[in-house]
């Protein structure tokens, strides 16, 4: 579980996150949605400690993370896996070396054991015969999957994904969403996913937080998102015509709502 309370972040006088309080539960996929520039990436980076909050507290289970010194953050960090918006694979290392990197750094496993773990993770994200390739030789979707494999190689308790399916075709995007959800279930991780993709919201949005201009406007699940009467949220959700049609259908079936 990750608990954020009264979190604010200010960049040179502009408030990018404004008094956000939210709890992210383990075992379910927590989605943070919002328009481009609403502060999703800043929220995620503040939660993981890449940015310092200007106000507020962050708790990882019973650890008061935002109070720790950077040296004391390290053990918590080793339980985090993160998928960055641009994959962030180490481009001087092969796929295999990328995934093995955390194992080399933080475990005392032998080569054979490490290879097995790498292959297991690669298989888990459906990548075959790419062990010796460099990130630049992979497609965007493959890079994302390798990055997921690297994020889960140490069995993290917390998984963070910043727009895991931006720039991917709808089918690959769906596969990645499903993968994230499966892994979350399987290892009971606390997973936070940033997205502005309504498909992801409908597919895996077990808990959804909507932020607009750095303010948390709405919180709920994908089941009730279509029926909310929050105007800013509706603006976002029904921005595309398909969603508008679905709402019209729903209103036809149930004219009172």
């Amino acid at each position, binding site marked *: 579980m990750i608990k954020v309370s009264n979190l604010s972040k200010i960049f040179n006088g502009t408030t990018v996150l404004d008094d956000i309080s939210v709890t992210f539960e383990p075992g379910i996929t927590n989605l943070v949605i919002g328009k481009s520039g609403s502060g999703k990436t800043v929220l995620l980076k503040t939660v993981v400690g890449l940015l310092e909050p200007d106000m507020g507290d962050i708790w990882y289970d019973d650890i008061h993370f935002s109070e720790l010194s950077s040296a004391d953050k390290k053990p918590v960090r080793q339980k*985090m896996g993160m998928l*960055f*918006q641009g994959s*962030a694979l180490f481009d*001087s290392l092969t796929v295999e070396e990328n995934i093995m*990197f955390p194992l080399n*750094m*933080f475990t005392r496993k032998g080569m054979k054991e490490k290879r097995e773990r790498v292959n297991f993770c690669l298989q888990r994200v459906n990548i075959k015969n790419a062990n010796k390739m460099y990130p630049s030789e992979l497609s965007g979707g493959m890079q994302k999957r390798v990055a997921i494999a690297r994020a889960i190689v140490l069995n993290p308790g917390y998984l963070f994904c910043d727009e895991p399916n931006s720039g991917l075709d709808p089918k690959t995007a769906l596969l990645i969403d499903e993968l994230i959800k499966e892994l979350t279930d399987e290892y009971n991780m606390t997973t936070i996913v940033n997205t502005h993709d309504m498909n992801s919201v409908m597919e895996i949005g077990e808990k959804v937080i909507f932020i607009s201009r750095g303010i948390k406007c709405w919180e709920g699940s994908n089941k009730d998102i279509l029926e909310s009467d929050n105007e800013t949220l509706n603006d976002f959700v029904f921005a595309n015509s398909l969603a508008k049609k679905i709402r019209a259908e729903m209103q036809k079936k149930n004219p009172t709502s």
Partner: protein
Amino acid sequence: MKFLESTGRYFMLLGRVFSRPEKFYVYYRQTMKEFELLGINSIGIVVVISVFMGAVIALQTAYNTENPIYPAYLIGLGTRDMIILEFSSTMVALILAGKVGSSIASEIGTMRVTEQIDALEIMGVNSASYLILPKLVATLIFNPFLTLISIIVGIFGGWFAGTAAGVITSESFIYGIQYAFIPYYITYSLIKTVVFAFIIATVSGFQGYIVSGGSLDVGRASTKAVVYSCILILLFNVILTQLLLS
């Protein structure tokens, strides 16, 4: 003001670079890689430049000492001392600042803008140390060898040019390079090299590490890395010369 702030950040980064490695073996392997990338790969350019500079130094010394009251072996002696004292340490360091410095800054800068440094931090790796320390160790250990190679090759270039142009006989050149030899000059040269290597690796590492923005900023950082390294090398050249030779 900005200068003071940058200097402060530079020393804070150095503090992080010199903290205890998470895993000694991983750092060791990375250092071995950097020996090749930053050291072995620089031998070629050092050899080429040293041969030609040695040749030019010998010829210029020859044409400036044409007066018959100067003995011919002075050409050998002059070439030797110039190469050891100034050329193989300072000039080679300036050239390495261009080659090695820009490569360090652009590599680390690219890692910064593509969030690879954030990825290291998230894993709990001290990114400053992991990225800069192996490069620093590799250059500190390897650059003295480059200086020695440069001295040997430079003197050879001088001998070759001098004898080929007929301005000095092989015997007097060789007599000259052995005449009144002061071994301390080599020590002085190597001390300078080590200090310059430290400047190149840390200043370029710093410039790359603090990049923010995109690929354009990476290019700017790598230019800055070269310019600042060169200025500091020249400054410390004066300081060290005063300290070590006075």
